């Protein structure tokens, strides 16, 4: 075991250039994957944030009174889809309208405080904010007969939802493309590294080394490449993240509300490290084995 590591260290020293090229390629591949993950994570956060704006407004039948309102509120608050419910009294509605639509404020004022109907403002749980889920929910409210009107910015729900879906699809497509490209690039590089070291493999084999003896240090070097590459990639990603934070300082609050850019969650960071080890060691093993298999 110690022998393998020592021979791997010697291999790295003897082929420092090759080692750093391979490490650099692993790092570049991981930076591409990581940047992509960073963007997806943040865009999803962003659009999910927008989706929080989805409220369902249910306007009570004029025939119902305060008690009915309270009863309906607690019934709806108990449903699984619902995150929060608040009651908007006619007075509050009038105040809101006066503020938001000054051009009709006079009209509202003339009509007196109870001209507008009372309503429930309902926020749904994240899982139930998709266009169809909201449709179904609104339908069920309408069907209860308590409400004169159920309103929920159908267009906006659809748009944010399908944008999120689009992002998801794009994410999968791009993720696959980037992952395939990364594997291809690392695989190629390792193949070329094996080619550059073909004499060494051939001579070791000729003096009686077993495949395992030859491949062992090769794979250890691959692990080292992967670990170092992953570290370098994380450093780059942190720098990118910081850079974007500085650049976007004034834009973010507008686009995200109070939110800010996230770095990769710990799970993804770990995945990046493991991925590095994997795309460092696996191609080394595969390429080395394939080359050895062709030697007598």
């Amino acid at each position: 075991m110690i022998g393998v590591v020592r021979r791997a260290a010697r291999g790295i020293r003897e082929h420092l250039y090759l080692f750093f090229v391979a490490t650099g390629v692993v790092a570049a591949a991981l930076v591409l994957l990581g940047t992509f993950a960073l963007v997806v994570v943040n865009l999803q956060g962003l659009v999910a944030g927008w989706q929080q704006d989805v409220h369902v407004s249910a306007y009570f039948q004029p025939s119902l009174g305060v008690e009915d309102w309270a009863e309906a509120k607690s019934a709806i608050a108990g449903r699984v889809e619902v995150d929060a419910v608040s009651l908007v009294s006619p007075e509050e509605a009038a105040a809101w309208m006066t503020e938001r639509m000054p051009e009709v404020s006079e009209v509202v004022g003339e009509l007196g405080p109870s001209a507008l109907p009372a309503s429930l403002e309902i926020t749904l749980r994240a899982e139930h904010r998709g266009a169809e889920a909201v449709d179904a929910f609104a339908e069920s409210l309408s069907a209860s007969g308590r409400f004169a009107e159920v309103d929920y910015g159908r267009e906006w729900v659809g748009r944010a939802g399908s944008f999120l879906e689009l992002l998801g699809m794009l994410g999968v497509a791009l993720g696959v493309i980037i992952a395939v490209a990364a594997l291809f690039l690392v695989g190629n590089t390792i193949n070329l590294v094996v080619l550059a070291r073909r004499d060494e493999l051939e001579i070791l084999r000729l003096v009686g080394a077993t495949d395992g003896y030859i491949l062992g240090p090769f794979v250890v070097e691959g692990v080292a490449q992967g670990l170092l590459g992953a570290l370098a990639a994380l450093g780059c990603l942190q720098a990118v993240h910081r850079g974007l934070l500085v650049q976007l300082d004034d834009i973010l609050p507008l686009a995200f509300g109070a939110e800010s850019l996230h770095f990769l969650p710990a799970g993804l960071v770990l995945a990046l490290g493991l991925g590095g080890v994997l795309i460092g060691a696996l191609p080394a093993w595969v390429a080395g084995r394939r080359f050895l298999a062709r030697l007598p």
Partner: protein
Amino acid sequence: MIPIGPVIRLYHIVKSYGDRDALRDVSVTVDKGEMVYITGPSGAGKSTLLKLLYGAELPSSGKMLIGGVDVSKLDRHSLPTLRRNMGVVFQDFKLLPRRTVGQNVAMALEVIGAAEEQVRRRVPAVLNIVGLRGREDDAAGVLSGGEKQRVAIARAIVNDPPILLADEPTGNVDGAMAVEVMEILQAINLRGTTVLVATHDVGLMDRFPYRRLRLVDGKLVAGAAPRARA
């Protein structure tokens, strides 16, 4: 040197590359502890014969036994075992140019899992034998032709193999050094190692007389069996 039966037996070995026959129906027996020359003109098949013995090539037809094991169809996973029991001086040396002389020689010990202490003891000893004392830490790539050849010899003998194959081990050294090399091989042979030397140096063969397998155009024209039996 008491011959105690054949260690290498070749029966009707043919080796063809496309439509060129490098070896044609070669049958040879080499006794344990024997020293044998393989000779013949350029391109006669000397190196090819050695390559078959260390498993770098498989024969096109015929049967080959080494130490009783049929190596004519050895799979590649059994080759390392065969090669650990052989020292080979390759015609083109096959050194790693960026490793030091010491590391190149140590390689043959490391692959058989020799203890570090043994490596530290044996490597300078054999380098001393081939006249390269003090060159241990030079990169093999910067050596002169003759120096490289001697490193190759040192690597082949460092782990005292039962069989030694040497492909023109004196091609790149001057006359005096060639005699020294032959004396080294002779000494190893006297310790019981079976030695096969491919060479075309007639003067040397006359000075160190052993059986000569003579190949011409891939055909064995002389020396098929040990002298005692021939």
